């Protein structure tokens, strides 16, 4: 029987991947196997949510990174020979997916934005973005296994169904990893999660200095929204935390309203807001690439326009 595997670090990831796997399994005639950490929840829960089999990753010593599981997963995958292996494209997920792909000699579609099984040809069809979001790459694979990494929150969490049955097996402990974790520094939650924001005001290079971001904040407040940023502001100037960086290599957002202030409109950034209902821009350069990628925009200095906008909104 054909097989679909999901490999997850957390329960949240596992549920999203189970949903993806459960959607594909009937057409592929595949059994669904969840490879999850033992500490990430009871196996019965995964079975209720679509897994036919749960493989529990052994608990690791504190200095071992998640990647330490790789040799065990590789061995199991070689034995079971699944057709499709799904990961979430988190930092650890992307790294492990690529390393596993190399070990299995498998193809990997990373950052996969569309995934389907074509019954006629028996191949997996995938889509992803390329050239900073300027292009859509369509891929197929008929060789197995094919590995796919989907961005977080691409799928709803799988719901539990009563009366489902499945097997559970504990995997052996992996050998010691060459990479050792010396320290884990949890992230300070300074910024709000802008992936959930209804309105985002995004600050770009058009701001002269950090203090001026107060203007962007004031507009965000007036609109009941959150502040976002383009990459130069988070990674070059370090004016705002990296969690607020919108774009292909940052977060992808789906607000009802996005307002870019002094944002030029580079493709990598605009790809991150492709899911927005309305995109607006304020930029003093009338030829800025953001204008054709916006629903409407104002040509003018953000320093003049934003206070006027706030005043108009308060009317």
């Amino acid at each position, binding site marked *: 029987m054909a097989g679909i595997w999901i490999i997850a670090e957390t329960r949240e990831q596992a549920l999203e991947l189970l949903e993806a796997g459960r959607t594909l399994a009937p057409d592929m005639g595949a059994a669904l196997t969840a490879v999850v950490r033992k500490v990430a929840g009871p196996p019965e829960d995964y079975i209720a949510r679509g897994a036919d089999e749960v493989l529990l990753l052994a608990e690791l010593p504190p200095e071992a990174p998640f990647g330490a599981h790789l040799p065990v997963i590789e061995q199991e995958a070689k034995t079971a020979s699944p057709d499709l292996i799904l990961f979430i494209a988190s*930092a650890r997920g*992307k*790294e492990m997916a*690529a*390393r596993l*792909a*190399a070990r299995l*000699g498998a*193809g990997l*579609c*990373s*950052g996969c934005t569309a995934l389907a099984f074509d019954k006629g040809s028996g191949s997996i069809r*995938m889509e*992803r*973005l*390329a*050239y*900073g*979001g300027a*292009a*859509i*790459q*369509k*891929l*197929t694979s008929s060789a197995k296994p094919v590995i796919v990494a989907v961005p977080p929150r691409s799928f709803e969490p799988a719901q539990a169904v009563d009366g489902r049955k499945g097997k559970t097996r504990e995997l052996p402990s992996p050998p010691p990893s060459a*990479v*050792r*974790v*010396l*320290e*884990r*520094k949890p*992230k300070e939650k300074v910024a709000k999660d802008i992936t959930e924001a209804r*309105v985002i005001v995004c600050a770009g290079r058009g701001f002269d200095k950090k203090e001026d971001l107060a203007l962007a904040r004031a507009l965000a407040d007036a609109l*009941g929204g959150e502040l976002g940023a383009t*990459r130069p502001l*988070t990674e*070059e100037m*370090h004016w705002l935390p*990296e969690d607020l960086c919108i774009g*292909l*290599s940052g977060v992808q957002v789906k607000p*009802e*309203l996005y307002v870019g202030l002094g944002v030029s409109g580079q*493709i990598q950034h605009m790809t991150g807001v*492709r899911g927005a209902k*309305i995109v607006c821009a304020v930029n003093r350069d009338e030829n800025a690439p953001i*204008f*054709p*990628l*916006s*629903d*409407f*925009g*104002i*040509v*003018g200095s953000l320093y003049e326009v934003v206070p*006027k*906008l706030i005043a*108009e909104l308060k009317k």
Partner: protein
Amino acid sequence: MPIVVACFKWVVDEAYIRRGAGGALDLSSVDYKIGEYDRNAIEEAARLRDAGGGGSVIGVTVGAPDSAKGVKDGLSRGMDQAFFVSDPSFKDLEPSQTAAILAEVIRTRIPQYDLITCGEGSSDLYAQQVGPRLAELLGIPCVCFVQKVSLEGGKLVADRRVEDGIEVVEAPLPALVTVLPDINTPRIPGVKDTLMAGKKPVTTVKKEELAGSFEGTLKTEAMTASSLERTGEKLAADAAGIARFVDSLRKSGVIR
């Protein structure tokens, strides 16, 4: 004195990509560049070399013969020498193929090295696979998404950024890291750097000189232009423009 291998790719500058008739990808007026993320990989290699009081940075790239410009560009950014693996068929390689070719070249041409640096992804495909795949093919430890790295006593210590924070890790050398854009600020080559680059050694490796067939695993059926275009109405920054802007927002129901 560390020997650092920096991998880089000469890519299409996506800013020049146009949407052609019927959504085709129009590459007719494109320019090329060294991948943005690869500049950080080269810079970090140079920084580690200098911090280690000598050593060298060996650049390696795989591409079609017209990527030669990229080799010179890379040499102007701090590399001491380069391996250019070139073949007309190396134009649109999959990450699995690129990694396999790089692995074969490094294995057979670079007998000793301490570290390999790669960008977090290429500027064109951004598949983020070549680094970790290469490490596996060479059988060396791999640390991805690194924002800080140092070498000491046969080990690397790195801060890797993951969703829930930072993992400070160590690994024995030789090892491979993929670096994040904020790890450094890549230099902008000056005239002198460009002149010097022309004098640095370049070893061109042909496909026939490599063992292996480097077959792909996935098939790219199509590469089409994405459409991010919207109506693009431009308003003036005067009272009428501001009023229309806010009115449009209200009408579209996005502000309450």
